[in-house]
């Protein structure tokens, strides 16, 4: 019997970003199941890891900081903590999921630089090594400490959605969650999927067009989110050791097998600041980057 493939375009809003999934399906039931399970998967991740939902697991963990209370966690959260731990180890403490607390000093509404006293107050609250966690529970030991899976969860969500669609026998498609892309599989004719990277200097322009048959693309940088204080552009990526915004790179995109890996590598490249480009080259990553001076470097 000849397969009647139909292409499905599924666009929606999730995790605070516009999302778009495109795939080939062979039946209406497969489409219904796919949409239902995608919604369910993303709702679950948002319910657990969104900082903006006051009853999310991450908000409950953050509220418990300093109360000496161990918050029970599920296997998926434990696995994400283990992944975050690996990022912390491999980056010698530069990629730290407890650094989100710095955002209160550098929020977009602020128009002045934080004082040294403010930095001295917040910096001790940062440090993944202070967090006590096991496979079953987590304790944030200091009042004010925060956990933030930015740079991990949205990318992990893209990988998860791609895998759950594969489990539904969908083998051709692409998942894009707010700019993070994971390929489910090549198009039925063997062609790759068009994936583009925006120009960090003119975000409405495409600077790189790729054609991906597999793997993932994730980006980190200051496309829209940066702040100007006294005419100086400050990144929203904050260095956990200095407490200050990074400088050096304006944006980085990385292609890798898994979106979550591409995302953490891109964030890490940003965190490397002035050494970012050298680090990307030294690790032989497939990358596109734009330096603060507007200079473009790429291997993609």
């Amino acid at each position, binding site marked *: 019997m000849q397969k009647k493939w139909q292409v499905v375009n599924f666009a929606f809003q999730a995790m605070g970003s516009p999302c778009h999934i495109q795939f080939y399906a062979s039946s209406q039931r497969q489409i219904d199941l796919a949409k239902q399970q995608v919604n369910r998967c993303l709702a*679950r991740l948002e319910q657990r890891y969104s900082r903006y939902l006051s009853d999310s697991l991450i908000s409950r963990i953050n509220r418990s900081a300093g109360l000496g209370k161990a918050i029970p966690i599920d296997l*998926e959260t434990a696995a994400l903590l283990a*992944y975050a731990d690996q*990022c912390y180890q491999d980056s010698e403490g530069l990629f730290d999921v407890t650094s989100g607390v710095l955002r209160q000093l550098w929020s977009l509404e602020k128009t002045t630089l934080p004082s040294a006293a403010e930095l001295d107050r917040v910096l001790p609250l940062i440090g993944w090594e202070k967090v006590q966690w096991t496979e079953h529970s987590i304790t944030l030991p200091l009042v004010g400490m925060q956990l933030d899976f930015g740079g991990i969860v949205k990318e*992990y*969500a893209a*990988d*998860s959605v791609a895998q759950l669609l594969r489990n539904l026998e969908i083998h051709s498609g692409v998942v894009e969650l707010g700019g993070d892309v994971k390929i489910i599989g090549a198009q039925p004719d063997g062609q790759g999927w068009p994936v583009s990277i925006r120009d960090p200097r003119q975000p409405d322009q495409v600077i790189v067009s790729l054609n991906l048959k597999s793997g993932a693309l994730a980006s980190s940088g200051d496309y829209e989110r940066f702040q100007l204080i006294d005419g100086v552009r400050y990144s929203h990526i904050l260095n956990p050791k200095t407490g200050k915004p990074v400088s050096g790179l304006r944006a980085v995109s990385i292609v890798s097998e898994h979106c979550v890996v591409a995302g953490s590598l891109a964030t*890490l490249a940003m965190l490397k600041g002035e050494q970012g480009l050298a680090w990307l080259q030294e690790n*032989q990553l497939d990358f596109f980057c734009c330096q603060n001076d507007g200079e473009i470097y790429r291997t993609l």
Partner: protein
Amino acid sequence: MSKNIINSLSLAALALPGLMQDAHAGRAEETYNADILYGHYAESNQRMSVDIVNVSASAPIGKAFTLAVDFVSDTMSGASPMFNMKDQNGQVKQILSGASITEQRYAGVASLSYALEDVTLNFGGGVSSENDYQSGHFNTGLSWDLNKKLTTLNISASVAFDEVSPTGYNYTKSKTSQQYLLGVTQILDKHSLVQSNMTFSYQNGFLSDPYKLVFVEGGGVQSDARPGKKFQWGWLTRYARHFQDLNDAALHADYRFYIDDWGIQAHMVELQWQQPIVDEWIIMPRFRYYTQNQADFYQSVFNTQNVGSVHSSDYRLAGFGTLGGGVKIMKSFQLNGFVKDIKLQAAFDYFDRKASYQIGGNNQGSFDNFSFYMVTASVNVKF
């Protein structure tokens, strides 16, 4: 140093559950399950009807164990056939038990399964109790995935001990039963599988029905008397095929052959079509045909020459056929909260049992023909 960080992070990423291929593989799902079923079975001509309530639940314990419990309450009422006799015209007539009695049966079963990489072990036991009948059983089984999970071997054994103390009689008799199952399931390709199960059972002890009689022309009635041993062999073959192009429909075709040393041979064919419609509604029409020939010692009525020491007029040991089918409707709701999944099911089946439906024909007449139906409704909740 080069590539090290990619390898290290990729390895860590592979431990994330969302990246694992088929998160359900190799292990019973980590969900709690609860089921409630209500069923009503009724035979034509005000014969027996049964109301069934079945509650079951299962829960994972640790990483490898699953505990399941199941409780059934059956309420039986109505008349049942006792024996047959000939009327003035020489026609065979069925005599039903007079008073409409109500009987209650309770049964409980518990089982524990232990899942290893490719092998799942199962141990269980249960009891069943009626005012005149007590039964207990133990069972154990093993399921073994081979050949990259394309082949599954099933082996199980069970033993049961039953005791009957018939109302109105002053004795207690017992029987023991053993049953062994050997089965294999083979995935043929992405869309089809075949399953073959063989069961052997051996019963010994009191196998007669204390409430049934036989009529002997010129000799009155005698008690039902069956051999003290029974050996049974059943062979079920199932073919299942998935049709992705028909909105994920599926066909199940079953054939079962049965033979025992009481002289009964039976064949059963069942076809079921599973059709998803929209919004997780599934409709399942099904059809079944069953035929058996009579036991060696069965007669509708006996005479003094042929009554012998073993004899029965139980309609279940007669030659007959059953034809029927029904439809089942299922609707699932997938939820995000504490409750993950709710499944509602309702089914209706109707069967017609006739002597003349026996394969190859049967001239026993229509005296023990009847029809029956079964309605069920159930709710399954996963959380």
